[in-house]
């Protein structure tokens, strides 16, 4: 079968999440992604032992899923001969991707200028923390960058601690941005013959992640920077509500039609007649009273009971699912958002995050989970770069490869 990115070779010199997941998107669509790792233990993410204090068990899904469909080469870039291997690989590649510090890369002769000289067609992609013109030089991670964006400070109820948007939420958007940027640069490379330097930083990507509210703040609405209670939602029909046994998400426009339908189901229709809530404007002005009234009514019955009343009315309301509900949701499986994949480490199929981007004729696929450290070092040296077996043995003896 053909893949959308057949024939693209990517050098993936990244660790942890944002960089690896950017390359994972390319690998899912058929690019040959070669993960370069240090011989001493490789990517630190290989060492993840627990998530939320729960032991990862017999397979380290954190590492294996975002490094799926990739090859691994263990090369010591502190060694002259190791750097030589990488320079040879650069000649044969389309993309170089890294999230290591620019200082380290320069020390290893892997700066943009150096690699561009070796292969002018190369797309050189960085996923930095704070952007090409940033001043902060400390190591960056998803949550420490998210802290600066303002995204966390505005979530949740007033007085509560700030809320992280979810484990890996910032890396995930940064990785997507980098993958998109790489395809833009490849498109341009095919037209002009020249690669270029791109950067999709965690900071820039996460500011973009905040667009629905940050744009409003930039336009002058300072209240968007602050926590706002659900009991004070400006549109009471777009809010979270608690029924007797669980939570519901209301996502309705504040128009009379929706209010009439909803109110007809609450408290035997008593709210329908309440003059304080008669118009959209009144519901916005008296929002706290509307929310209190809905809260009081909903507590009396279960989520299922309410949903059976509302579904025939076509109201935009859903129960708020938990992860078990999602794991059982046929919509997630039938769209390949979750897939089963064979895991070599445990010799069985496991459930993994699948393919969120659908291409009808050249769909992505999960062919293998993350490689063993250095699994493909010899293959790439001999088949792609033309090293002889004697040379491979010599490189090993010198410690340039694992």
């Amino acid at each position, binding site marked *: 079968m053909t893949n959308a*990115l057949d024939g693209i070779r990517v050098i993936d010199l990244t660790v942890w*999440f944002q960089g690896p997941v950017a390359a994972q998107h390319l690998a899912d669509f058929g690019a040959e992604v070669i993960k370069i790792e240090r011989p001493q233990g490789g990517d630190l993410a290989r060492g993840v032992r*627990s998530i*939320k*204090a729960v032991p*990862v068990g017999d*397979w380290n899904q954190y590492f294996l*899923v975002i490094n799926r469909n990739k090859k691994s080469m263990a090369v010591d870039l502190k060694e002259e001969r190791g750097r030589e291997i990488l320079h040879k690989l650069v000649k044969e590649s389309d993309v170089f991707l890294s999230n290591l510090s620019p200082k380290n890369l320069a020390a290893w002769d892997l700066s943009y200028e150096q690699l561009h000289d070796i292969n002018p067609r190369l797309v050189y992609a960085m996923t930095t923390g704070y952007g090409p013109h*940033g001043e902060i*030089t*400390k190591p960056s*991670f998803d*949550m420490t960058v998210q*802290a600066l*964006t*303002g*995204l*966390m400070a505005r*979530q*949740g*109820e007033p007085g*509560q601690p*700030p*809320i992280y*948007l979810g*484990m890996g939420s910032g890396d*995930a958007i940064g990785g*997507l941005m980098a993958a998109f940027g790489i*395809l*833009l*640069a*490849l*498109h*341009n490379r095919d037209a002009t013959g020249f690669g*270029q*330097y791109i*950067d*999709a930083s965690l*900071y820039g990507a996460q500011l973009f992640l905040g667009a629905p509210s*940050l744009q409003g703040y930039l*336009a002058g609405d300072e209240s968007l*920077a602050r926590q706002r209670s659900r009991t004070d939602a400006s549109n009471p029909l777009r809010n*979270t509500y608690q029924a007797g046994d669980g939570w519901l*998400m209301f*996502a309705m426009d504040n128009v009379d039609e929706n209010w009439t339908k909803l109110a007809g189901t609450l408290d035997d229709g008593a709210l329908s007649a309440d003059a304080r809530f008669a118009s959209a404007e009144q519901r916005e002005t008296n929002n706290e009273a509307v929310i209190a009234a809905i809260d009081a009514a909903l507590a009396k019955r279960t989520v299922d009971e309410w949903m059976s009343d509302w579904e025939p009315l076509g109201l935009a309301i*859903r129960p708020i699912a*938990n*992860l078990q509900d*999602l*794991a059982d949701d046929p*919509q997630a*499986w*039938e*769209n390949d958002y979750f897939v089963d994949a064979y895991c070599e480490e445990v010799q069985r199929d496991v459930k993994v995050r699948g393919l969120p*981007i*659908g*291409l*009808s*004729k*050249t769909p992505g696929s999960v062919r293998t989970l993350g490689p063993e450290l250095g699994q493909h070092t010899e293959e790439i040296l001999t088949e792609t770069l033309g090293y002889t077996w004697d040379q491979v043995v010599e490189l090993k003896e010198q410690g340039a490869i694992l």
Partner: protein
Amino acid sequence: MSKALDGLVVLDTTTEFWASLAAAMLGDFGASVIKVEPPGSRSAPDARAWDHLFELANRNKRSLAIDVEQPDGRAAFEKLVAKADVFLTDALPSTLQERSLDYASLSQLKPGLVYARGSAYGPSGPDRDLPGDDALAAARTGIMPVLPQPGQPPVYTEAGQMYTTVMLAFGVMAALRHREKTGEGQQVDASLLGGNMYGGSLDLQAFLAMGGERFLQPVSRLDAGNPMSGVLYQASDGRWVTLTMPDTDRWWPDLAEITGLDVDDERFNSHEKRCEVNRLELLGTLEDAFGKQPSDHWRNELDSRQMSADIIEDYAYPAADSSVVRNRYVIDVKDADDGSHRMLGFPIYMSDTPAELSNRAPAIGEHSAEILRGLLGYSADEVAELEAVGAIA
């Protein structure tokens, strides 16, 4: 200066913020994005009005107001499709079918067309034809209940849709790459469900692999898995310090020193003790320590040692950060009266073909005549006739 997507013609029929923004991202990098709108579908332009979300999602586009239900309008639209590389929509399958804007109809007019749809719940499965909303998609992912502290209401962040935006743009580029090699077009789909799921991917994956109640409920910040990573501690001035140092062996000596702990403290002198055996004790100990000094003190200490940590800021921080301007993550835009507005800029830096703001969001039909004449070769008389019969506006 040349741009990455020079020459690419994108027909954008989207109406939702997140889907329209995907087309704008292609426009930012030079694609010729034509916003195809039914005449009268939005109000006449008021030069003074500044709808900031609309301006963001529709910048770098031109507008063609055309009635594709009318024969003359349909004929012009079909000529346009024949010139296009990409068609973008967020309409329901039933609507697209009714209006002959489905993939089968349009790919006949332009073999090789990349037909991209932003959907609610994806192209397959029982709910593929349902309308959607970012909040409803978020509610379905299981992430909302785990975000806050225990006992607090579930949290809707509004961020899920933004993953969908970039996924849609990425999908278009991947499909274009396949077309360049083979001439073959195809359908691309990115959904609000897929985007929201992707944003929560580490929690989702952990639950799929490991299961268990702990992933279904919020975890208290004082019960975090690693006391040095992904945590929040409150400083004496009420502000919050966050640390991400998953490799605790590397950072423990520095952290112990600034918090006044003994680096050799028997309780905490190995990764295993810090993250497993005495995890809760370390969380409590650090909470006490951080509570003794204000946030400015911590920022100085953490920064001087180049530790991966920061203070939680609100939107005032990026709004005032000069590096945000230098990196063009936020830009200034002029309106028709030369008034200045701040707008989110360009999250992707390209050294040779940078993104640019060429024009602000168009008024409806602002470029109808220009597009028909320039791209489709209509004469001035033909354009006037189309206007007269109401096929374009």
